[in-house]
């Protein structure tokens, strides 16, 4: 494994060396406020002791601390607290950690090489930003069409009432919900489900079937998906892609789950929900396609505004961890920019 990591280190160094050149671009790069580009040199130590992944992210964290000292401290404290919930590491756990390090090294090298191949250049051939391909954004597409979970939520199932809506929920449906709302997935921030007759009960959104019974259900953020609750076994999720692991400073993809435009931190041992790490819009930006509606205003994050600002030739818009370059005349998306490089 040491050889494997050393080999990966060599590739990483080569890749990072190649990526070090773009700083001499067209001047926009001068506004880079110490983002994690420099981190690439320290990413791989190849000692195989299971700690290198943590060290890999230290440069990232250092940058974040500069920008948000309070936030970082709180994050670290939360992470420490959650770590305490995990039992003393066994040999098996160590092996798992080492494997995780290998995967981490491999994906980082792979992503950087891939990113390098997607460099965007201006007319003079100089690098102006880095364009990423769609692989990491694939999960946004995967999550856009979801199905309800069949049957009854656990609480109602236990009552063995034939999966009928509970009396209180029936009354709520008849009376409408709070503020006179018709309950619908969108009221709870859910955009990937079909319309229909829904009712809310005890942390779940219930879909009424044609026979008056419950045709399916959705666990809700703040309800069944509250902190401390176990992840509902039937609630499908996607693995958080490498880019988001790094961008949202998550620390390890096995500890996070993505579902319905929410990234949850979960306990790797018992899959209990530990926190809500990020909310996403799920809006679809496809290169070469029109920019989705809802991005009329320049919204690039604070740390990148010196680098990506609107000009007559290019507009920049932020969504779900990426900055997109858009042609102001055609409104077509020209590039998705990796903010981690």
């Amino acid at each position: 494994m040491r050889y494997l990591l050393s080999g990966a280190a060599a590739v990483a160094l080569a890749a990072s060396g190649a990526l070090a050149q773009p700083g001499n671009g067209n001047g926009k790069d001068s506004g880079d406020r110490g983002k994690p580009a420099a981190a690439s040199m320290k990413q791989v130590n190849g000692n195989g002791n299971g700690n290198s992944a943590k060290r890999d992210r230290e440069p990232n964290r250092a940058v974040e601390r500069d920008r948000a000292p309070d936030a970082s401290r709180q994050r670290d404290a939360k992470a420490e607290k959650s770590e305490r919930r995990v039992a003393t590491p066994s040999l098996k756990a160590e092996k798992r950690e080492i494997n995780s390090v290998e995967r981490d090294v491999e994906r980082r090298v792979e992503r950087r090489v891939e990113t390098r191949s997607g460099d965007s250049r201006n007319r003079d051939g100089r690098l102006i930003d880095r364009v990423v391909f769609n692989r990491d954004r694939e999960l946004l597409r995967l999550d856009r069409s979801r199905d309800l979970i069949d049957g009854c939520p656990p609480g109602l199932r236990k009552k063995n009432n034939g999966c009928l809506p509970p009396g209180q929920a029936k009354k709520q449906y008849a009376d409408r919900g709070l503020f006179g709302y018709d309950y619908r997935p969108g009221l709870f921030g859910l955009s990937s489900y079909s319309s229909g007759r829904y009712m809310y009960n005890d942390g779940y959104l219930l879909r009424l079937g044609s026979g008056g019974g419950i045709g399916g259900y959705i666990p809700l953020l703040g309800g069944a998906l509250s902190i401390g609750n176990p992840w509902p076994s039937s609630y499908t999720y996607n693995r958080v892609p490498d880019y988001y692991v790094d961008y949202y400073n998550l620390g390890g993809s096995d500890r996070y789950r993505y579902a319905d435009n929410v990234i949850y931190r979960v306990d790797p041992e018992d899959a209990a929900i530990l926190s809500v790490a990020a909310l996403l819009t799920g809006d679809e930006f496809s290169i070469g396609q029109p920019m989705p509606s809802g991005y009329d205003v320049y919204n690039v994050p604070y740390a990148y505004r010196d680098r990506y600002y609107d000009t007559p030739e290019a507009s920049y818009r932020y969504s779900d961890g990426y900055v997109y370059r858009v042609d102001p005349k055609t409104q077509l998306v020209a590039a998705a920019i990796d903010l981690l490089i």
Partner: protein
Amino acid sequence: MKPIFKCGLAAIALAALPLTSACSQVDDQDPKTATKDDGTITLAAALGAEDGMDTLQNAITNSELSGVLDGPASYTLLAPTDAAFDALGDEGKALLTDDQRPLLVGLLREHMLPGHLTPETIEKAIADKGGPVTISTLGESQVTFSMNGDQLSAALPGGATAAITGTAIAANNGVVIPLDTVLMPQKAG
């Protein structure tokens, strides 16, 4: 602490007055409402620095979204004041109970926008476009911003309309923009 903060803010605003009059295109003309830029604090801290936002702070804590406002990603929070929540009456109080927390989360997501948006950049976009602009939320909808005279306002489709009041604070991971009304979504989907 807050009076000191306010005095500091007033001093900064007064000092900036000649500058803002010289740069009339983008900057807010009214020093009372110009966005306060503080890259040393997080969105959560910015919300804490706003006056009259206790209800919203409690709502965010209860809805378990606090970590999002302290994270590395950038969001703009449309922040209804305590008076705005009070105006919802008993149903507003019920909204803050544990049983209704999923609905509260959905409502808060409608008040969160991706990225770093200030009232000034929104006003400029409205001026450039010559009419209302829309911004995607972290919920199901898009917020429409428009100008009514000198007043910037925000509205959900078929839902409530709110005026942008007070001073926005731009933090290192987003912006807090005060609203005088809670943006309740439309009743039927």
